[in-house]
């Protein structure tokens, strides 16, 4: 294992210390339990948006804390979901009284821990809602799996809903917008290499020089299938079409309503010709931006041929898997409400415009 670390147990803590040192105007860090929060939190009258997940996906989520995006982020150990006490104490720290929205990527660990945190917050009288992000089209069915994973759409939903909260949306409106934006987003990822979790000390999986893993999530877990490496154009065409032609997706999610967990049946409608989208080409960490542009070039071509109009884009490493080489593509249907909040100002360590 070749990494810029000191001691394995200190990896997450030293990263947080570095963030706090670099961005004192934007964020503060609380330790034990660990969470990153807005320097000016709680923001009076504003719904607090909180996310979290395993570390190793930087800049997500800690890098998205700040004006117009998240109020707090809870980092777990590398690729391990954070714990309910982190989320609960973060909620207490940033809740202005307008309530807290937990944005939760659909991974079993994240889901279970955020559910426990929501139970704790509700018991303390904090208005709270959990909305799941589950956008990974590599997972075809929800009946025989834990459902679609939360991947690239997470970054876009955090930006969009963060701006809505900043603009004065109440908790229910924020939750509705998050649910809608999630249902409008679809993603697909692939890996050229594995990656090494510091505590494990060796790559999560082995891959030959001429191979790639198609349909991965963001934790280095093996994907949908192993394939021979193909040229960027062919790969981009394949991934874009998996996303654009993905059929309606239905699943049952659990949401907190008046202190009770209730099942809700949600359906994502497929893309159709004439849709406007935000296109997000993301590096898994090891792939350079130059290659992302090569992918974007082909993605734009495929979208045009399919009658999908890209009206905004985001290109770069925003939701990563340590040093893994590979990329993901996300398309998110953009209506006027979503575009307005996408364009709104944001000022965080990892994403900044309009200020």
């Amino acid at each position, binding site marked *: 294992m070749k990494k810029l670390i000191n001691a394995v147990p200190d990896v997450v803590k030293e990263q947080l210390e570095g963030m706090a040192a670099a961005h004192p105007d934007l964020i503060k860090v609380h330790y034990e339990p660990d969470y990153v929060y807005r320097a000016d939190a709680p923001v009076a009258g504003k719904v607090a948006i909180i996310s979290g997940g395993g570390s190793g996906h930087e800049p997500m989520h800690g890098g998205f804390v700040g004006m117009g995006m998240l109020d707090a982020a809870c980092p777990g150990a590398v690729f391990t*979901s954070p714990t309910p006490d982190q989320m609960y104490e973060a909620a207490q720290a940033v809740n202005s009284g307008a309530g807290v929205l937990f944005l939760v990527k659909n991974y079993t660990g994240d889901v279970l821990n955020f559910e426990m945190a929501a139970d704790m917050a509700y018991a303390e009288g904090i208005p709270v809602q959990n909305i799941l992000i589950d956008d990974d089209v590599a997972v075809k069915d929800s009946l025989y799996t834990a459902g679609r994973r939360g991947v690239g759409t997470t970054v876009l939903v955090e930006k969009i809903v963060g701006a809505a909260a900043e603009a004065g949306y109440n908790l229910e409106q924020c939750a509705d917008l998050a649910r809608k934006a999630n249902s409008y987003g679809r993603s697909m990822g692939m890996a050229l290499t594995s990656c090494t979790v510091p505590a494990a000390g060796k790559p*999560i999986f082995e891959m030959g020089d001429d191979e790639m893993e198609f349909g991965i999530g963001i934790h280095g877990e093996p994907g949908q299938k192993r394939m021979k490496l193909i040229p960027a154009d062919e790969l981009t065409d394949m991934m874009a079409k998996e996303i654009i032609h993905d059929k309606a997706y239905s699943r049952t999610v659990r949401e907190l309503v008046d202190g009770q967990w209730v099942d809700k049946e949600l359906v994502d409608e497929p893309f159709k010709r004439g849709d406007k989208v935000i296109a997000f080409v993301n590096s898994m960490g090891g792939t350079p931006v130059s290659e992302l542009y090569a992918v974007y070039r082909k993605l734009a071509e495929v979208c045009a041929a399919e009658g999908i109009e890209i009206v905004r884009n985001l290109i770069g490493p925003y939701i990563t898997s340590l040093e893994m080489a590979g990329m993901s593509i996300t398309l998110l249907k953009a209506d006027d409400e979503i575009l307005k909040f996408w364009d709104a100002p944001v000022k965080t360590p990892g994403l900044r415009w309009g200020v």
Partner: protein
Amino acid sequence: MSTVTKEQVVRWLEATAAVLAANKGYLTDLDSAIGDADHGTNMDRGFKKVMEKLPTVADKDIGNILKTVGMTLISSVGGASGPLYGTFYMRGGMAADAKEELDAGDLINVLQGAVDGIIQRGRAQPGDKTMVDALLPALAALKQAVADGQELPAAVAAAVAAAEQGMKDTIPLQARKGRASYLGERSIGHQDPGATSSHLILNALLGVL
């Protein structure tokens, strides 16, 4: 009349911490085949915390001790196993409220509460390739052995044997819960790490009786 004393419960937890530390690499290897390569590390971290907390509650009743274990795991393990094993010990502890020792009926209630808690939190069914596949057969075997009039060490031995069989039976299963479910058919042929840690935990109990 055989019972599990409070001292044995404390030794069970100590033995659990030791066996999870010893099997940290093994559990993580199992998890790297079909999950995210952290189960051994996470369980070891959690039970090291439990060992720090244990002296502060060792003089309390068994329910209190087990609930403290649950809370400690919930706040230190993370992943899916944190809430699941946390709930396991919390709900087991609720069934042992104010008890200074557990007779066979009490032990059944503890395991029943613990397993119900895991199923409620994780919503796994038998055959989904999870810890439930080791725990449910163990609970059934414990009940059967007690109903047959067996003394506690023998009844727990039957439960451990059933957990071991259930654990091995996860090998040909296709996962339907957790990260392993994303592998589809590729999850077949691997033993489930959660079922494995569940077997280790029950086997640690047998070791102190």
